[in-house]
């Protein structure tokens, strides 16, 4: 199995205004994870610069680099919701490939659909359990280097989680198209989406072969960064 040969050092960015929930996620994931308590801090952490929001460029605060393999965020947060954060991430050329998982304590189907259509890879109902966290592995592995990893779980809600590469590409196209239909008024982002769907295809393939040369994501050398208040 591919997993056994990979040193599973991955980093997850957890976004939630509840310290208890952040602690829970941290333990559930049991690896080094970063924590922040708001969407705006998340973007700051990821190196998002508001003045250049059309093409997010990285202005890391230190010279160290950080690699984030998954972002897991609460939906209901003061200021920026998890959905808003998701949108910003998907609009960024550099961040959009990071899988995003949304959590919510409220079971609202329209909310769930909206998030999935916007590109969320999973939607968890809180409180999050070990069984949910096990679904995250395939998404995390997608952004790691090394050999390709077939996703283990099929989820009815999760269109991206398909067995084969071709299916992966075609459903991501489908998701993007659906989003495009909804974003009728926003032509710049439409163009961005079209470009991104093609990029997504090639990015997915190139990610399996090795790190994409476009990735200029900064990296931290080690450990746990907790940015919560």
């Amino acid at each position, binding site marked *: 199995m591919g997993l056994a040969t990979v040193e599973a050092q991955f980093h997850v960015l957890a976004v939630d205004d*509840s310290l208890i929930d952040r602690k829970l996620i941290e333990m559930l994931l049991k690896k080094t994870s970063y924590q922040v308590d708001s969407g705006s801090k998340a973007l700051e952490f990821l190196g998002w610069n508001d003045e250049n929001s059309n093409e997010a460029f990285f202005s890391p605060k230190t010279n160290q680099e950080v690699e984030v393999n998954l972002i897991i965020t609460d939906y209901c947060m003061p200021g920026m919701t998890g959905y808003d954060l998701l949108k910003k991430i998907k609009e960024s050329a550099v961040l959009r490939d990071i899988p995003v998982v949304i959590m919510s304590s409220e079971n609202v189907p329209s909310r769930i659909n909206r998030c999935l259509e916007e590109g969320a890879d999973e939607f968890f109902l809180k409180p999050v359990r070990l069984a949910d966290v096990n679904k995250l592995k395939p998404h995390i592995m997608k952004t790691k280097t090394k050999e390709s990893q077939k996703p283990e779980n099929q989820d009815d809600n999760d269109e991206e989680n398909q067995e084969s590469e071709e299916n992966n590409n075609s459903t991501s196209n489908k998701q993007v198209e659906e989003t495009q239909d909804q974003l009728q008024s926003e032509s710049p982002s439409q163009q961005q989406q079209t470009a991104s769907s093609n990029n997504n295809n090639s990015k997915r393939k190139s990610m399996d072969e090795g790190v994409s040369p476009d990735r200029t994501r900064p990296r931290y050398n080690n450990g746990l960064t907790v940015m919560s208040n």
Partner: protein
Amino acid sequence: MEVQLQRSYLEYCNALFREGFLDGQFVQLQMLRDDSNPDFVMEVVILFFEDSQRILNELSKTLDEQNVDFKKIDANVHQLKGSSSSIGAQRVRNACIAFRSFCDAQDVESCLRCLQQVQQEYLLVKSKLEALLRLEQQIVAAGGVVPTLNDFS
């Protein structure tokens, strides 16, 4: 000695689940504890106490004002509902759910009653959790291992 303690612990837990003070989520928390994080459950429980106390104080203050800010009340109750749910404090969570419906109705009197109810449930589960943690400490001090709970959810 520790066998006795362990038996008491399991009986106590069973009772708490039966009476609805705790639900399956608490078992999930127990499952996350391991050798490298032996104090995990205790840490989360302590966080829960601090957080809940803060929220209850806030709620009290807000309901005391001339023009009650129901949005603020709702936000706070939502938070408390979330944290009690994450820890498995079922009765607190249910009390919060009821609270929110009265909040929607913007009825101060009912909200005050709800607050009392939530406070009561919180104090109850607090003392039970403290007793539970004390039992765990005693088991460990006697050289035993805290028994794993079955999922009662």
